[in-house]
Structures are given as C-alpha cells and as structure tokens.
C-alpha cells in the first residue's frame, strides 16, 4: 500500500485506512479491481483523484483541450515546415542550401527540449518580455472575445516553437529522404520529358508519393509528441495533460496517471484512424 499512496498511509489509523481502501475499492482482489476499472471507463468514469478527490474525468477533460491545442498546432506547423524544407533540400540535393538545411535540422534534433524551453523563457520571456512565460492564458485579466484569442495565441507561441523544434527534424529528414527517392523514379523523368514545369513535376508528381512515409512518421510520432509535450508543458507551466501527468506522478495520484495514459492512448488510436483515412487519398494502392 505504501507504494501506492505514499507515506501518508503510515500515519493513518486503521479505521481511516480501511475507509480509504473501501472508498477506492482497493480492498478487493486485483482482478475484480481491474474489471471494475474497465466497467467504469465504459461509463465514462475514470475514478477519483486520491489527492483532490475530484472525478478524474473532470480533471482530464479540463486539461485535454490545451494539450490538443498545443499538439495539433505543433503537428500542423512541423509538418508544413518539415515537408516544405525537405522538398526544397531534396530538389537541391548536394547543393549549398541542402547542406545548410541538413545542418540546421540535425542541430535542432540534438538539442534537449527543456533546455530550449528554458532559453526561450529566459530570453524572449524574462529579458525581452515579448511573450508570457506562464500558463495558457491570463485568467485574471478577464479577456473576452478577440482579446482572449490573442492572449491564448501569445501564450501558445513559445511552447509551440519549442515543440516544433523538437518534432520538425524527423519530418524534415523523412521528407527529404523520401523525396530524393521519388525524384529518382522513372515516372519523374517521364513527367519531365513530357515537358511539365519543374513546379508541376515537384508538386503533382513527386510530392504526393513522397508524402506517404511522412504521414506514417507523423502518426507514429503522435505518442512521442504528446510525451514531448509533458516536458514542455512543465517548463512553460502550461495546463495541459503533460503537466497534469507530471503533477500526478509527483503526487502518486494513480487514478489521474491512469486517466492521462488512457487519454493519450485514445489520442494515438485516433491519430492512427485518421492516418488510415489519409493513406488512400495519397496512394490508390491502399484501399
């Protein structure tokens, strides 16, 4: 028991102990606990936080939108930047621009995320004061309407940039590699021989085929991106699931931890389902 709820339990009297165990169903056999857990998930009940006693469903759904906002913005931006730069580099393979881009992205890839975040906070937040360094919005300011959107966007910028720096490299590298591969295909030479413009060749004939592995990478990285968000959300005190998970782990708040993992799993599964819809659009061989 000690391992589950921590030191506090040692200080409890045996009645208190029994009460707590009863309340959370921890006195039942493990298998029954598991069935109960599955059963309540189906009813949309993820249990109660050990710490705040609030329903986990409420806690998680309060945080989820922020993580989604952060992750989706990140995925969109990383994909656009990675794909555009990867295509550009592949088209100019071996030339100066390709080498410069490669070095930039490999550099991005090798930087630790929390460190980038801290540098950003120190420079653009604290020193220059351009961006807020804490939270997802200025709750106390009571902004409404458009001002509120701007406020949220301002809070979003630094964590997003940090996350993009983290996730863009793998997309860039995948796109570049896949594009180089496709550009060597016979149908690309054919497209050029037909007299199509470079732009047409690149965007209609090459891009579509080159994107297929990128979709796979983005979707596979979805879990990783949410994981990356844990650190970033913590550094920027962003009230998303990542930070919630961090807090829950610190507090050994197991139902909340489970709730977080459950939601992350749902997100990853959803991402895979979306990918399954995108594949056939890109590649007619996948039906």
């Amino acid at each position, binding site marked *: 028991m000690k391992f589950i709820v921590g030191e506090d339990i040692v200080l409890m009297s045996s009645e208190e102990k029994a009460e707590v165990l009863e309340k959370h169903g921890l006195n039942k056999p493990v298998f029954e606990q598991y069935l109960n857990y599955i059963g309540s998930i189906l009813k949309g009940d993820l249990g109660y936080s050990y710490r705040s006693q609030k329903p986990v469903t409420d806690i998680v759904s309060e945080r989820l939108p922020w993580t989604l906002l952060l992750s989706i913005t990140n995925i969109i931006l990383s994909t656009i930047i990675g794909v555009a730069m990867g295509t550009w580099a592949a088209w100019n393979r071996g030339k100066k621009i390709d080498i410069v881009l490669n070095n930039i992205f490999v550099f991005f890839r090798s930087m630790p995320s929390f460190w980038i975040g801290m540098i950003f906070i120190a420079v653009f937040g604290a020193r220059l004061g351009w961006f807020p360094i804490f939270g997802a919005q200025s709750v106390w300011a009571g902004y409404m309407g458009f001002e509120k959107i701007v406020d949220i966007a301002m809070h979003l910028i630094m964590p997003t940039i940090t996350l993009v720096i983290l996730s863009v490299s793998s997309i860039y590298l995948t796109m570049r590699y896949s594009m180089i591969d496709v550009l060597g*295909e*016979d*149908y690309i*030479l*054919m*497209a*050029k*021989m*037909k*007299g*199509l*413009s*470079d732009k047409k060749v690149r965007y209609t*004939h090459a891009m*579509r*085929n080159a994107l297929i592995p990128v979709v796979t990478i983005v979707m596979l990285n979805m879990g990783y991106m949410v994981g990356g968000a844990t650190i970033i959300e913590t550094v920027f005190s962003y009230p998303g699931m990542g930070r919630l998970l961090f807090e829950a782990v610190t507090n050994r708040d197991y139902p909340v931890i489970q709730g977080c993992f459950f939601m992350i799993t749902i997100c990853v599964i959803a991402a895979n389902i979306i990918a399954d819809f995108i594949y056939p659009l*890109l*590649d*007619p*061989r996948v039906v």
Partner: protein
Amino acid sequence: MALLEVRNLTTYYETKIGYNEALQGLSFDLEAGGILGLIGESGCGKSTAGFSMMNMIEYPGKIMDGEVILDGKDLIKMDRNELRKVLWKDIAMIPQSAMNALNPAYKVGKQILEAIKLHFPEMSQEEAVAKVEHLLNLVGIDAKWYHGYPHKLSGGMKQRIIIAMALSCDPKVIISDEATTGLDVLIEAQILALLKKIALDRGLGLIIISHDLNMVTAICNRIGIMYAGMLVELTTTENVLRNPKHPYTRALFSSQIDSKDFDKKVTSVDGVVPKLVNPEDKCRFYDRCNRKFEMCERKCPSLISISDNHRVACYLEGDNHE
C-alpha cells in the same frame, strides 16, 4: 533538309576515376517517314543516345558536345523553358523502363491527358478525353482503362500505355528504347506495324533502339550499329544484310550462329568490350577484331562515307588511312 540532324553528340558520365565516355560523336540524319534502328550490345550507349537526343541527360551524365537539330532548332542549346515546349510536342521517347514510367498515384488516362492539355491548351476537355480514348484503342487497350490505376495493369499494358502517351501530342520524332521488349510476339508485331504505319502516314521519324536483330531488320529502313559508345556503321538495312563492312557488323550478321538471340551472337565475337572510363585512343573494337592491324592501335577511326548511304568507322574501308 532532314527532319532530325544529330551532329557529334557526345555524352559522358562523371565517375570517381574520370569520365565514362558512354556516347562519343554520334551523328546521323533522320528523314520524315524514316525508321532508323540503333543496335548494339548492352552498355554500348543506346539509351544514353536516346536521352541525349531529348536533352534529358541528368547528373552524373553531361552532354559534352553536339547538336540535335529538329526543325532547324538545336535542342541542346535550348534552356529548360524552351525545351519544355518542344519535348513531347515535337520529339517523344518511350523509355526502356516504360513499365515504371507511370506515376502510381494517378489514373493512366489522366497521365496521357496531362500531356495533351499541356501542349494543346486550346483543346476542350471533351476533345482531349476523346483523344486519349482513341489512343488507348489504337494500342489495343480498352478505353475503360482510362480510369485504371497503374498497379492494376500488367507490364505489357503499361508499356502500351506509354506508347499511347508517346503518340499523344503527334510528335515529329519518336525514340523507342526497347519499347516492345517483353511484349508477347503478336502484340509486338501489332505495335510495330502500328508505329510503322504512323511513321509512313504522318511522315514521322522513328528511332528504334533494340537488341532484336530480326525485328530491326524487318521494320527499319536504315540501321546504325553501335559499339562501345560509338556508331561503327550506318547504312541501309539492305547493306547491313548483304554488304556489311565493319568487322563487328560482319560478326553479327554473317555469323554462323543462326540465332535470333542477339546476346549469343555478340558472345560469338571473342574478347571483351573496352572500358569506357578514360579509354585509350585506339579503335574501340581493337581487342575483339580479327582483322586489326598496326594502324588501328594509334588512333580511333571516325565514321566516314564509303559510298552513298554507307558510312563505316574502320581503317579497312574507304580512304580512312589518313
């Protein structure tokens, strides 16, 4: 004036140890309605010649010299934008890897349509689609395949689609690089008959790159024999069969081995093809030639006229003795 004049076309590939002189000084004329066969063993530079004529050589290849004059305009001097207007509209090519020349992501009809719409922007959508369907029928493919994706087609069907594609913009010259290799005999005969008919009817110039001696002698009115990046003999089909001059041509055509198989005939000529990277300046056929003499080792012979319509690169013929 000839429809297509190729002059001293020379293409090298960059390698770590120097240039691979894959195509050296190719020159010939092609008349409207003329069908020229280019034959030679694997690696002798046939495909390189084809792509060079389209000015479509890509890194590590480089066209070092030469002219390809079509309608009085030199394709080699054109920049990419000028070239784009001429490619496919005036000169089209069926590449050797025709099976892989279709983009897997688009319907085959669309891919033919794309070329037509590009080069005939004034044509209406219905007209263009009708033209594609007509072309498909021409190469023996049901028009319903317009909406098919390449992965649903057999290799032979893809090849025929590419042939249809080559015909799509009514070019003046078509280069066919082993276009019918691998098709079954009946289809091959049909396609070749079709190409020949179109060549004669429309005054199209046809260049047929092939391994198949029988096919080339049956369909072409002139034949160029290539060896190690160079044209060694260029003459009428008649002359090639009755009066071959170059020792290599002789070996190929008067060979005792009565086989259709080109490769068997080639190996009946002893010796190996010289390396093309930094080759020595001697006749490239020297090592395999059974009539070589001292002169052949000093300098590579060039293709000279020995009579009307008959050109040979060998010191035994004509006034090639300097």
